[in-house]
């Protein structure tokens, strides 16, 4: 599914958070929105998702322009946002329709792919942060979204769980070929995962630069190329102190 942003701006009570963003995303591409805090990355993502319809400009999803929530988009939030009164299984089936049996089979399949087989009956309070976030990922994937929006999905996790879940995301992407827009402030994450990194900067945030990463996956987290890319990104953010 393709996605296009044309001259998207968002103003909150007179203060512009992000302005004149243009972006074309090809089907199956992984795009990273990178920037320091307050440059409007999440604002942009909420506009794409339809959760925030108050933006200016046009967002076109698969050829149609609308400000509604699309049923083909999935959203993974910064926090797991599981419904605490539902078990893991019911949380994953939350967005599905159809017969109970079908829903559950589907949910179990996805729970398996995030490595949580056998934890269906637990409640969110019994999960660790990493497990809860994996349930949230399963919940977003189970509806087979053609566009997957991620808002700093791993930022609250420890370094090891983070890497594990990044690899999981790539597995899922390989399997279902979703288009992914990932908001992050973690440069390593962006260079490891994305086909293209869009750097936002300033207040109001504007697109500063786009960097295409051609390296084949799986990428080596410690490779020289990624290190070069990192310093290039740091430079464009004016954060490289040398």
């Amino acid at each position, binding site marked *: 599914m393709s996605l296009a942003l044309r001259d998207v701006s968002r103003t909150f009570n007179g203060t512009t958070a992000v302005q004149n963003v243009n972006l074309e995303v090809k089907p199956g591409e992984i795009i990273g929105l990178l920037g320091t805090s307050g440059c409007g990355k999440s604002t942009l993502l909420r506009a794409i*998702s339809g*959760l925030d319809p108050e933006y200016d400009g046009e967002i076109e999803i698969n050829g149609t322009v609308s400000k509604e*929530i699309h*049923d083909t*988009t*999935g*959203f993974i*939030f910064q*926090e*797991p*946002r*599981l*419904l*605490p*009164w*539902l078990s893991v299984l019911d949380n994953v089936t*939350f*967005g599905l329709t159809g017969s109970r049996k079908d829903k559950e089979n589907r949910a179990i399949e996805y729970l398996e792919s995030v490595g949580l087989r056998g934890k269906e*009956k*637990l*409640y*969110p*309070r*019994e*999960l*660790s*942060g*990493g*497990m*809860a976030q994996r349930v949230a990922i399963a919940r977003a994937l189970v*509806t087979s979204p053609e566009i997957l929006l991620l808002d700093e999905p791993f930022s*609250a*996790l*420890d370094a090891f*769980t983070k890497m594990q879940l990044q690899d999981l995301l790539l597995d899922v992407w390989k399997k279902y070929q979703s288009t992914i827009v990932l908001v992050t402030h973690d440069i390593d994450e962006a260079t490891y995962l994305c086909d293209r990194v869009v750097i936002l900067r300033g207040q109001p945030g504007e697109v500063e630069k786009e960097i295409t990463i051609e390296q084949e996956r799986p990428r080596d987290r410690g490779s020289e190329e990624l290190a070069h890319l990192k310093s290039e990104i740091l430079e464009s953010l004016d954060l490289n102190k040398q």
Partner: protein
Amino acid sequence: MAEQQNNVTAGYVKPAPEARGKKASIKKKKDSLVKTVFMGSIIPVLLIIIWEILCRAGVVPSNQLPAPSTIVEKIISMAQDGSLWGHVWITTYRVLVGFVIGTVAAIVLGSFVGFYKKAEQLFDPMIQAFRSIPSLAWVPLFILWLGIGETSKVTMIAVGVFFPVYLNIVSGILGVDRKLIEVGKMYGLNTLQLVKRIILPASLPSFLVGMRSGLGLGWMFVVAAELMGASQGLGFLLVFGQNMSSPETILASIILFAIIGKITDWILKLVEDRSLHWQDRLEK
């Protein structure tokens, strides 16, 4: 959600309950129940023994404060001649009917005010104003309007129950996490589905708190209602005991109030535990 994040470092927070074996956990529950009952009864039992000794020794005059054994005898004799059941039944009946009416009214109005901004602007200020009237002040008016029969008593209890339930429902609905509502929206739920699948379950805890404090007030108001004029009921026994200068009748009635009140609260507590087992609460 914040709790979940705090658990990050803890890794697996709790082993699955099945892992420990059902039998062991049931036994453990039983043990802890016995222990709770034992710990809780030490001080009351001691006090009752001291009271009994003081009465028997004649330190307090028995026409002022009868011994616990006299009170128990009184209850038993009332149970034997059958009058006890009538009093207990009619009082419980009044509380339950008043409770149901008050709760239903609170649910209807509370959800309206919670969901619709317009309804809040229309109704809430008025309800808040009514709330600041001490509910007992309505008594003379209700008697004037509805007579001294069951209707005025039940109405009074319903009024007492209404306010805590209403306030808790409204604050429960208004306090639902916006983030969870966004999850629902992301899955394309319409307003009705949002209410059913997210807002109602999320406001359930606060609703149950309201029900429990409403029930407590219901018991308070039944006493007031029965004091003002009744021919049967535990409140009537209080007046009757006073007129006959029989403190054991008054004390027996008080004790019965305590027992039934506790039982009804315990039933609600069971409902609460059942429906809120998912909550992440402090366990001491």
